[in-house]
């Protein structure tokens, strides 16, 4: 794979244009966008900036075609049975909230989550505890942060109606054995929702093979435009759910007293959508498929390995998650005992334009339970290079000597 050639697809990495050689290690927050995605978004605004589905004119017809195409591309990307199983959202958070609010819970129903969920897959369930009297149970992970199947099974019973799990953790990059988890959950009649925000950009997902019921992802973490996302749901399930947000575009007809909802996905896509974003997301999917997940994973693994090897030698530095870099995808999260993580991140930025994330990465619960103040997360993607990993490591060695 020619990383240098790939980097040319990303205008933000063009140091001649930006006049700064940025080392971008914050893909887990948002990935960079290739020119093809930017072009697709621009094309919408420049050529056919109209509504999809509502109007009849030529622009509207063109946008409708483009949005349908993006939906189909996404359905293929996830290997969904049909395009109607793809609901466009603003992000993963919205997808999870949709399920949390639309799922037919009854008081006493149990929802299982792990102990290292992103707030987006924790708070919506906490709200359901308050609003609908469900019970939220936390599955503890193993000491090395990998999924504890025994602990999961111990909590699994007939009262469990939904298992909502982060497919790949934004904290440490660990991907859970989703297939096995889903099989076991289905055995007790529970449905499974996967938060695939950190999976979709890095691993091929086959929703049919997984037999997953719901899966949420964010477009902006997988090269798509900001504020785009997808909720996949099995069609029959989606049909059975009540809509979450309602209004324009969700109904076929209405009287003063009543309405007739459209079938999925429309009944879940209330109001005017981010057409430019959706079209851009379609372009991102095509680009990802063109690069290929083998290439992506190989490059990420190289970088995570190189980083982990160098960070091992820095005194007082601890990497969160399993020791084996191969289990952490593109994520290397660490903290230095007694050193503020924000300070490290800001210094990296100042020293060599190295952009990383610091703090608790919206997984406050995990940090609070362990009384760890925060950490620095370097999340790599296929456009990162070994040289960049070396720059980061060299800066960290310097920082360690000083702080």
């Amino acid at each position: 794979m020619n990383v240098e050639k790939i980097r040319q697809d990303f205008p933000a990495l063009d140091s001649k244009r930006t006049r700064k050689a940025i080392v971008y290690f914050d893909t887990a927050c948002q990935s960079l966008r290739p020119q093809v995605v930017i072009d697709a978004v621009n094309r919408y605004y420049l050529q056919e900036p109209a509504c999809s589905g509502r109007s009849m004119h030529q622009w509207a017809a063109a946008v409708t075609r483009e949005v349908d195409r993006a939906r189909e591309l996404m359905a293929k990307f996830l290997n969904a049975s049909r395009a109607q199983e793809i609901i466009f959202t603003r992000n993963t958070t919205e997808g999870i909230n949709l399920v949390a609010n639309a799922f037919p819970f009854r008081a006493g129903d149990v929802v299982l989550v792990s102990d290292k969920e992103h707030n987006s897959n924790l708070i919506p369930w906490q709200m359901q505890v308050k609003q609908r009297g469900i019970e939220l149970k936390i599955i503890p992970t193993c000491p090395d942060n990998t999924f504890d199947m025994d602990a999961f099974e111990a909590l699994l019973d007939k009262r469990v109606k939904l298992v909502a799990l982060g497919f790949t953790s934004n904290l440490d990059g660990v991907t859970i054995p989703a297939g096995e988890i889903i099989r076991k959950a289905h055995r007790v009649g529970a449905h499974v929702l996967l938060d695939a925000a950190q999976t979709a950009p890095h691993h091929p997902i086959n929703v049919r093979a997984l037999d997953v019921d719901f899966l949420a992802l964010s477009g902006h973490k997988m090269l798509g435009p900001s504020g785009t996302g997808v909720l996949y749901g099995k069609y029959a399930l989606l049909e059975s759910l009540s809509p979450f947000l309602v209004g324009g575009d969700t109904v076929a007809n209405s009287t003063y007293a009543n309405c007739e909802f459209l079938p999925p996905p429309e009944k879940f896509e209330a109001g005017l959508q981010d057409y430019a974003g959706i079209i851009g997301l379609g372009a991102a999917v095509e680009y990802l498929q063109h690069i290929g997940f083998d290439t992506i994973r190989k490059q990420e693994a190289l970088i995570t390995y190189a980083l982990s090897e160098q960070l091992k030698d820095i005194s007082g530095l601890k990497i969160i998650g399993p020791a084996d870099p191969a289990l952490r995808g593109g994520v290397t999260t660490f903290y230095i005992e007694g050193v503020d993580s924000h300070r490290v991140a800001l210094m990296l930025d100042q020293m060599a334009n190295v952009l990383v994330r610091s703090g608790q990465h919206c997984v406050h619960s995990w940090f609070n339970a362990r009384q760890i103040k925060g950490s620095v997360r370097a999340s790599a993607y296929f456009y990162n290079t070994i040289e960049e990993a070396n720059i980061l490591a060299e800066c960290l060695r310097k920082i360690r000597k000083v702080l």
Partner: protein
Amino acid sequence: MFCIVSFIVLSILGIFSASNRSLAKEALDCVLRRVTFRPCTTGFDEKMKAKILGVVIMRSETLARLLNKYFEALAWAFFTLLLASSIIFARGLYLFYVTGSCNGLNQAAFCVFDPSGANNQVSTFAGCLNGEGDISKLTLEGVNLSDFPTLQPESAYRVVLIGCYTCDYTRKVYDSVLTLVRRYHTQLVFLHYPVNEKNDFLSRLGYCAYQQNPEGYWRLNEELIHSDKAMLSELTNGPSLLSTLKPETNRFLEALVSEAGLDAGRVLTCANDPATEAAVQRQMNEIVKTNFYGTPTLFIGDQVFVGPKPYRVYAIALKGLFFWLRS
């Protein structure tokens, strides 16, 4: 402490750039302990410290280590220096406004606001006078001013100007002194001392003009102050006997006196009169008693201004800091 220092520094830098303005705002929030808790942000001081360390570490790790260790102490030291220099700066600015010099009235030491020291320059003479250069000795006590030309003698307050027609600095200040006394209706007593001149001819000329017609005298004064110095040089440097003057100098002098509305013949005859010589000598002796050492020297109340000060300095001495609010 660091927040305070940053706020001050960034506020000043904020004059030049918007990004510094927004940082200054963050620093103010930090000073007021008004931290906006965004999920993943950190305090302003922590942010700036990290940025500074990030810059220093690339140059010297030892320096960065020291900075990290003594950051707060250094912030204090910097703050103290900043405070001290701000006070000195503010004082200098105030003194410059009030006295025309950063270092206080008639102090000729370097001042950034008046780098050439123009407000303190004086014309001095070669000869010796009592108390030369000593501001503290300047006085009007025991000086008989009754014989000297007085403008607006009816007003109660008095301003006394020692000047010389051919001196650059008197010329620079004369008009603003006139404006001042007219605006605030005070007396102006003008003491002419020929600092630059080899003879006292112009003093005699002024003396005679005033004897003949006070109003004409003030007009002549203005003309002399504004006239071409080259034309006056024969009068002030030569033997000053009218009969020996070049015809064009003679014509120039006559025109000058006539234009002031005076009888040129009478005034010039009087100027050459030995009795005038004696009277002018008496005046000179009085002027010397002030211990002045250069022109212009201006007395306003109990304050003495040596050198050409900006108009506002005189106005403040006369009417206070907010002179522009008073009539």
